[in-house]
């Protein structure tokens, strides 16, 4: 079986499960309509969640940046006082924090993308609801004719599909938001505890990649240190 038919089978079973609960076709219409309104609320909640998470991550970025700046000026002060060992320590902390900041822009962009999708979902659903509300009353009025019953079946299934589709979109968006929130929280906890060696290692599982990161970070420390030395040296000459 191909992926398309598999997807179709799973999806259609979700649609019929959602519609099977009601016996009288006329009730199905009202029930579907209520479900749509509920779904619209869910989409809007999911949108609000994504916005909240994005703002949290943006705040976290600001916080990390101010810590990075703080360690940088500590390193400079230490070097001026002739304490290269302390300067190195501060720069190591700075490098660890910088590693944490790397993925944040990508996450912010991803959440923004989700917000756009949810907004689009909400707009599409609102149009469907309006269309369904109009058709529903017409169909109900003609309920006795066989043709109207067929139409009702079609409208309900079409609507059921839309509900299942949007429901799935909301669920996937929430899962993603949840994962990002968990990661942001993990970073906060690590930096709060000051466990910076762990912080450097935390987001990467692959040992090779972890070593590469560490190498890159210690290279960064050396570079920063020489840059600082050059800067202070230049200051002395003036």
């Amino acid at each position, binding site marked *: 079986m*191909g*992926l*398309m*038919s*598999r*997807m*179709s*089978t*799973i*999806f*259609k*079973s979700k649609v019929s499960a959602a519609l099977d609960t009601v016996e009288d076709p006329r009730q199905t219409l009202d029930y579907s309509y209520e479900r749509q309104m509920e779904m619209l609320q869910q989409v809007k909640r999911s949108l609000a969640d994504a916005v909240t998470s994005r703002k949290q991550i943006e705040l976290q970025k600001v916080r990390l940046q101010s810590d990075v700046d703080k360690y940088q000026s500590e390193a400079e002060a230490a070097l001026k006082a002739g304490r290269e060992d302390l300067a190195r320590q501060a720069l190591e902390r700075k490098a660890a924090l910088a590693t944490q900041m790397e993925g944040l822009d990508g996450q912010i962009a991803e959440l923004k993308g989700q917000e756009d*999708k949810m907004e689009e*979902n909400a707009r*599409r659903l609102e*149009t*469907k609801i*309006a*269309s*369904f509300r109009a*058709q529903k009353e017409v169909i109900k009025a003609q309920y006795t004719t066989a043709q109207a019953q067929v139409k009702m079946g*079609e*409208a309900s*299934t*079409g*609507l059921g*599909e*839309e509900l299942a*589709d949007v429901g*799935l*979109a909301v669920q*996937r968006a929430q899962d993603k938001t949840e994962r990002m929130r968990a990661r942001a929280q993990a970073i906060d906890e690590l930096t709060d505890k000051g466990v910076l060696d762990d912080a450097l290692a935390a987001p990467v599982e692959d040992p090779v990649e972890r070593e590469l990161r560490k190498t890159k970070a210690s290279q960064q420390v050396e570079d920063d240190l020489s840059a600082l030395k050059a800067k202070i040296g230049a200051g002395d000459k003036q």
Partner: protein
Amino acid sequence: MIVRILHEGQYEVGAVALAELRRLDDELMDDLTRGDEAGFVARRDQILALVRSEGSMLGPEVLRESDLVLPPADLTLEEARSLFTEQA
């Protein structure tokens, strides 16, 4: 035939494009079986691009049942794999 791309909308697609879709779908399954992530992503995008270019999109006010349901544009290999372990 009416084809739905999840999270995107419905398209009316002709028989020629449909045959091409089925062929690409077989290849997509091969990518999935081999665990070829790059191939999977390329094929997935190719399939969706075909529907968008060959099909005509139904307006949001249309309420009709789909004959075929395609995965969303951002479906990952991992998610596709779990579709085959999930109960239909």
